[in-house]
């Protein structure tokens, strides 16, 4: 309390300013405060005479209203029953163990919920349209722009505050405050640094290396060329031992396609094929979707996302679509046991373009 007393003289000035800024409000026509109190009947003796109604109390068509009342009440009862049904369905119909139970529960819960809400909604609409008398009122609209005295008073108040705070008058305070806030503003950005590691050369390499076996993605089994003797077939393969490593599969997934002798042409690197089997990266060079569709008759590899189309017999060159580069070919050979292995990593980065790719 003593604090406020001390600062009494200081506050008096802003108070005066506030009075000035308020004055025009009164002029516009705010009713005196006494009127507000009487609205709730607490003012006592000098209650003014009741104002005339603004809204009619009853609809014109009383007989129609009576009918509507019954309909609305019936709808509300329907809603109540549906609500009870919802609770009953929740308690009575278990889920889990079988999809039929899930289906039944969903049907009962959803239908009862929908009916409960819709019956209420329809009832309320009928209530408004049939039971409430139709009125149309007009309210005045005033320009958004404040009256000139208000604006001037605001400007004055703001300027006073600026002066009183000394913010304008003392540039050294202002500048040092700004100087102090800059590093604080930057600090949160710095904090985001550890969201992830720096890219480095991560995107340039995959786990493929000399001697690493190709395994069928679905079964995790290595492949001998002789096992894959159906020309026109396509298999998705992943590096052996990486079947649970999504980060590596996301770069290293490969498709192998078997061709008839002589079908593979330039620019396919035939040294990297085994027995007319060629291996391409499965990661589209557009934005990285797996290129999963292979059309045997046309030898087209198609990405289902944006329809980039690659010619499988000719080094997966681009035929159509937004992809710009061929699917990189994986150098492939066989190991001593006759299984398909990589001869090295891809000779270029796989997947989508990135700035540092070059």
């Amino acid at each position, binding site marked *: 309390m003593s604090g406020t007393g001390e600062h009494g003289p200081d506050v008096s000035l802003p108070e005066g300013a506030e009075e000035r800024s308020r004055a025009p409000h009164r002029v516009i026509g705010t009713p005196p405060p006494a009127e507000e109190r009487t609205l709730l009947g607490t003012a006592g003796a000098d209650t003014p005479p009741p104002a005339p109604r603004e809204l009619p109390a009853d609809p014109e068509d009383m007989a129609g209203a009576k009918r509507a009342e019954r309909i609305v009440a019936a709808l509300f009862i329907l809603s109540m029953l549906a609500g009870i049904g919802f609770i009953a369905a929740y308690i009575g119909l278990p889920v889990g163990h079988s999809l039929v139970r899930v289906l039944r529960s969903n049907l009962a819960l959803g239908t009862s919920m929908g009916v409960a809400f819709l019956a209420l909604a329809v009832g309320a609409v009928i209530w408004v349209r049939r039971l409430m008398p139709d009125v149309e009122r007009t309210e005045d609209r005033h320009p958004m722009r404040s009256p000139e005295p208000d604006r001037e008073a605001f400007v004055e108040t703001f300027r006073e505050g600026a002066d009183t705070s000394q913010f304008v008058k003392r540039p050294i305070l202002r500048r040092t405050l700004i100087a102090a806030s800059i590093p604080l503003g930057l600090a949160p950005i710095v904090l*985001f640094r550890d969201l992830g590691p720096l890219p480095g050369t*991560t995107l340039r390499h995959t786990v493929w290396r000399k001697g690493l076996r190709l395994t069928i993605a679905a079964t995790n089994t290595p492949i001998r060329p002789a096992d894959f003797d159906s020309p026109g077939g396509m298999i998705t393969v992943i590096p052996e031992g990486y079947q649970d490593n999504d980060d590596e599969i996301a770069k290293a997934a490969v498709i192998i396609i078997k061709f008839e002798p002589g079908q593979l042409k330039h620019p396919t690197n035939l040294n990297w094929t085994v027995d007319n089997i060629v291996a391409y990266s499965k990661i589209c060079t557009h934005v990285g979707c797996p290129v999963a569709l292979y059309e045997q008759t046309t030898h087209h590899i198609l990405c289902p996302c944006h329809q980039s189309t690659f010619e499988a017999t000719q080094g997966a060159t681009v035929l159509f679509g937004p992809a710009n580069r061929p699917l990189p070919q994986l150098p492939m050979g066989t190991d001593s046991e006759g299984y398909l292995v990589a001869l090295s990593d891809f000779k270029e980065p796989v997947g989508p373009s990135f700035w540092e790719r070059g």
Partner: protein
Amino acid sequence: MSSINGAPEGPVAKLLGGTGTFLDDRLHAAKGTRTFLRKVFPDHWSFLLGEIALYSFIILLLTGTFLTFFFKPSMTSMIYHGTYTKLDGVRMSEAYASTLNISFDVRGGLLMRQIHHWAANLFLAAIMIHMIRIFFTGAYRKPRELNWLIGIVMFTLALLEGLFGYSLPDDLLSGTGLRILEGVLLGIPIVGTYGSFFLFGGQFPGHDIVPRLYIIHVLLIPALLLALISAHLFLMFHQKHTQMPGKGRTSYNVVGQPMYPYFMAKTGAFFLFIFGVLALLSTFAQINPIWLYGPYNPAEISAGSQPDFYMGFLEGSLRVMPNWSWNLWGHTFAWDVLIPALVPLGLIFTGAALWPFLERWLTGDQLEHHVNDRPRNAATRTGIGVAVVTFWGILWLEGANDVIADHFNISLYLTTEIARYAVFIGPVVGYWVTKRICLGLQRKDAQSLLHGYETGIVRMTPEGEFIEQERPLPEEDRAVLAARQDYAIPLPAADEGADGVPAPGTRGAVGKLRLRFARVLLEGAPPAGDGHGNGHGNGHGAIGEGEPERAAVTAGDGPDHPADGPGTDSE
């Protein structure tokens, strides 16, 4: 504490005397609350579109909260053994498994999931149509530019919110969506690779993306949306809603029904209606059956992968783009990703944000507008709106071109080739056709104003001539048709001065260009009964900038105030 302002004794009096007095003693709220209760809301079916968005959002909050109680935002691998036996023994993330559990092992879980997803689609659809309505009726004009900007920000946030939300279950479809997001991020020059590594916590897919998207989806964006919705509604409330033109409706009033009890009851019913419809839709129409897609695996994909409809536009944009790319100075400029990801979205959103200010600058119109335009009366604006919608629509269709090609048995590549031309030609055609239709409708309106309507009664004159009798339109209809006066307000800065001296804003190269665009913008058919000096619909400019109040005329009373009518300058 007996009779309150003539109200009868009873529960109402008791409520007011007890709770009302208690609250007002403490809050000084009687006057403000009364103003609130008496506030008039104009009515028009198109004003419900924003409400649909609002109520979908509330339903999203309710159902979303339920889902958070059961969803596990974790990418930790696990082997599933649960109710959905087809995926028994399959490796998947906890996020995916918990989504299966919500669907099959939590009572009401499937329903809540489906309502949540349907509500998300409805939310976005309602926002889009609401924005289109605002644009076509010119409701963004002064003083509502700020609310228009807030709306654009909310639309952007809603798109992200939707994308992040459907990515959470970590299923094959949404994982593919994230893969595309990664590919697009990588394509951004200089910072793209870093951005991707920071977002995903390393290589794609990593183990961080689902928990990160989760907190953004359930906390960050909803909080921002909630704040912006509050601001949006506050501004709408404070500035009072616009109204459609009609008898007695002016820029100085609001005609409609009071908040209490009418608007409250109607809007409450509308909320229940939306909730009910969503509940039934979610009961009978399956949406996002993630168990059919399977868990995410970066080496797998299914054909016909489509994002939710509101993202289809970006998907189509990526599909339609030719494979341009540069390799310069050891760096990759992936135009095939950058242009489709940034340009259409940037054009539409930036264009939409700037439009109110551009239009105001071109026309020099500094007035407040509270009566909406009928779209036909602003032919050029409506044409531009249709052009944008066409552009969006073609890209959206192209986003489903594989499905279209499959269903209609046409070549996949042909659909893309067509779309490549259509994105440029379609909007131009849309603009031109729409504008012609609008001008035609304007002429028809002018005719109806002048001649009234045809009664179908044919009379023979004493001279033996047969004529059909015409009657003047009812006053209500006349008021609506005459609303074009509001749009055709003389706009000084956009025109030559009345005395042939160019107005200050029209001098110089920029001024001339501005004048030319303003003419196109304000182009309209000649108004009713005004055959002179008004060929361009804006051949007037007499009213000085100093007296805007008088020109802020209104829809309804245009004809009654010849001083405001078009063509005054020709005298």
